[in-house]
């Protein structure tokens, strides 16, 4: 029987949540790695029992954990993330040169085809790859050494490489996003990178259409249309249909186009979801009403989805890695909040159920569809 497994990272541990295809009742285990910040947990598409987790602490640094049994047991693997060669400098908040310093792993993206290959997006921004199940990590230095690297500057949350999207039809092509450098694409599995920020406009930087410097919060695509990519920028919801060469705004009738998450329906490549957040000063929904907004037209025309979501006194945020979709016939949509809630819609967003409440602040939510 089909089912799903949710992998939820929080500020104080990880939780694994299993359900059948109805997604009505949940078996929840955790906290795993209690007390540690779990930035991201993701399973291998090639082997759902293989899961990677980023475990981090301001005191004790970075760990990477691996499970070979679907999150029942875990083992630490290598945490040795050493930049390849001279680190050089990027810009600090005050504009002065600042050396690259490894701080944590924001995002782990397993290969679609090989359970032992996984990419890590780290702060300060760089990409690492392991081809031995996390036993060792090698930087892909072409990104950090990009000619624009010395102009990258951290966002408020640090200079993290927070999003990695592998083209399902072409493993050599990946899209990534860095706060606050922008979006980049590789066509050669990470050896070389191109900034893909044309069409973005950011009023908070001196040159509003600069090649780099945009605070991209999240990007997502549908596996059937890998040249079409959707973006939630700091402000603005954007789309490209030429693999990032040109972006255009599709915020349309959204009540605010600030937010963090964006995702695409598993079976409808023009159906996308965002969670509008009031502003970058007020990281909570407008009027305390938590709403997912859905567009069935690839942007511009949006509708609020509220059935089952709190519509009063809800002042939470939904962070960039905290939304995902499953691939069951009735596509499930999931998201977690900084208030410790995890919500599930088993029908593409029409109604929402609370999976769990009162967790520590949720940093990431990923789902595995189990056949």
């Amino acid at each position, binding site marked *: 029987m089909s089912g799903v497994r949710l992998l939820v990272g929080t500020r104080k541990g990880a939780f694994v949540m299993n359900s059948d295809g109805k997604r009505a009742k949940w078996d929840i285990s955790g906290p795993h790695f209690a*007390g*540690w910040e779990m930035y991201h947990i993701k399973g291998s598409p090639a082997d759902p029992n293989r899961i990677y987790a980023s475990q981090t*602490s*301001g*005191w*004790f*640094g*970075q*760990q990477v954990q691996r499970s070979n049994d679907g999150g029942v047991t875990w083992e*630490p693997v290598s*945490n*040795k*993330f*050493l930049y390849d060669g001279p680190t050089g400098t990027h810009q600090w908040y005050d504009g002065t040169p600042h050396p690259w310093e*490894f701080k944590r792993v924001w995002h782990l993206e397993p290969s679609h085809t090989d359970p032992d290959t996984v990419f890590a997006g780290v702060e300060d921004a760089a990409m690492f790859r392991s081809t031995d199940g996390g036993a060792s990590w090698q930087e892909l230095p072409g990104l950090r050494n990009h000619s624009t690297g010395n102009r990258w500057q951290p966002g408020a949350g640090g200079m993290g490489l927070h999003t990695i999207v592998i083209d399902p039809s072409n493993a050599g092509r990946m899209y990534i996003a860095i706060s606050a450098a922008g979006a980049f694409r590789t066509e050669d599995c990470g050896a070389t990178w191109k900034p893909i920020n044309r069409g973005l406009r950011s009023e908070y930087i001196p040159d509003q259409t600069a090649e780099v410097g945009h605070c991209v919060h999240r990007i997502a695509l549908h596996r059937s249309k890998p040249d079409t990519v959707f973006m939630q920028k700091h402000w603005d919801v954007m789309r490209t249909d030429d693999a990032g060469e040109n972006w255009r705004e599709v915020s349309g009738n959204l009540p605010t186009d600030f937010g963090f998450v964006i995702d695409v329906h598993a079976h409808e490549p023009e159906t996308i979801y965002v969670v509008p957040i009031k502003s970058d000063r007020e990281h909570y929904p407008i009027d305390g009403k938590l709403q997912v907004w859905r567009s069935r037209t690839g942007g511009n025309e949006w509708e609020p989805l509220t059935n089952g979501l709190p519509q009063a006194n809800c002042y939470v945020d939904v962070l960039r890695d905290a939304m995902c979709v499953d691939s069951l016939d009735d596509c499930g949509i999931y998201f977690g909040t900084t208030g410790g809630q995890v919500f599930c819609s088993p029908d593409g967003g029409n109604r929402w159920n609370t999976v769990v409440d009162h967790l520590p602040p949720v940093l990431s939510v990923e789902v595995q569809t189990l056949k």
Partner: protein
Amino acid sequence: MIRVELPAQLRILAKIKGEVEVEVAGPATIGAVLDAIEARYPVLEGAIRDHGTLRRRPFVRYFLCGQDWSHEPADTPLPEAVAEGREPFLVIGAIAGG
């Protein structure tokens, strides 16, 4: 034999119960003790000291005989009481965060 007490988070990570006893080859120094700990528990590499630089992580402290030794160079000889195992080498997660 040198007795080392690690903070709870690192004991859980390394599956350690209670104190750790280590012997060091050569002079008993801060660095030698940490080398011995990391050799026995590789998962602790990077958790007390940074990879590569081997600098103490900012919110980790070393307390020996009631004194803060965190800022001592790694090759500083340990107090006799610690080197002989009468007093523990304490690795502390600093109180931080308010």
